[in-house]
């Protein structure tokens, strides 16, 4: 077993474990911390895929910004441990979860049977992950979408302020 594969296995097992802790913990703070660990593990996985820019953005945006927001809201709400973890179980929910499993099996089978010709990482991949390559693509081919993201973020700021206001005058 090569070192890269060993690294992938460690990161993969830890990311799955932390994801399970996230959805199964009674204490919301434990969930949030497990999710931070999950984001760091995913960042490591991006590094094994030679995507340095995405790996750094993962830590900055998710672990740095979004999770701080989530932890802040947990603190503001002052929640205790949940006594009842899930809603009442009825036939509809059980069927929904069964369908989720069917969906996952479908994903895995599609991936395994219908892959494009991608057995090896091409030589250009190391350059494709850099800020230079992504920046060039972002500001030439995807300029309109980039501007649209700016408008979206502005709308999100205005919306969040409006929702957080106690009274709108």
């Amino acid at each position, binding site marked *: 077993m090569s070192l890269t594969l060993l690294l992938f296995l460690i990161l993969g097992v830890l990311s799955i474990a932390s994801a399970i802790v996230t959805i199964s913990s009674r204490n919301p703070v434990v*969930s949030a911390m497990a999710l931070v660990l999950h984001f760091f593990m*995913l960042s490591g996985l991006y590094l094994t895929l030679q995507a340095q820019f995405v790996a750094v953005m993962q830590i900055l945006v998710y672990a740095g910004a979004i999770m701080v927001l989530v932890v802040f809201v947990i603190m503001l709400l002052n929640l205790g441990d949940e006594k009842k973890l899930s809603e009442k179980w009825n036939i509809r929910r059980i069927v929904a*979860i069964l369908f*989720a499993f069917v969906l996952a099996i479908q994903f895995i089978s599609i991936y395994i049977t219908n892959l494009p010709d991608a057995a090896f990482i091409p030589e250009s991949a190391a350059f494709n992950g850099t800020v230079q390559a992504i920046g060039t693509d972002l500001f030439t081919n995807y300029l309109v979408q980039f501007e649209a993201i700016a408008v979206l973020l502005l709308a999100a700021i205005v919306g969040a302020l409006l929702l957080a206001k106690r009274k709108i005058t």
Partner: protein
Amino acid sequence: MINAIPLEYYLGLASIIFLIGTVGVLVRRNAIIVFMSIELMLNSVNLTFVGFSTYLGDTAGQVFVFFVMAVAAAEAAIGLAIVLALFRNKQTIYVDEVNVLKW
């Protein structure tokens, strides 16, 4: 370039994480945990994007991950503001106790 990890491993891992996120959304009643489960699902899709981007030698997948992250950040701000407004009005964040629209 010699590579030890096949693309299928990344895709399988992403499917498993997506499944965990789906179960979290369907089962949990705490709105913040539901919210975190949605983040899990978005992240697993990101992993798929980056995997294909690397193995096909195309930058487009990573640019898409950038967009997904921006949308996730906007969604986080709005979603948590909604949770706060909900808590202020109903004193609960458990989704089964919020049934104003149910009839």
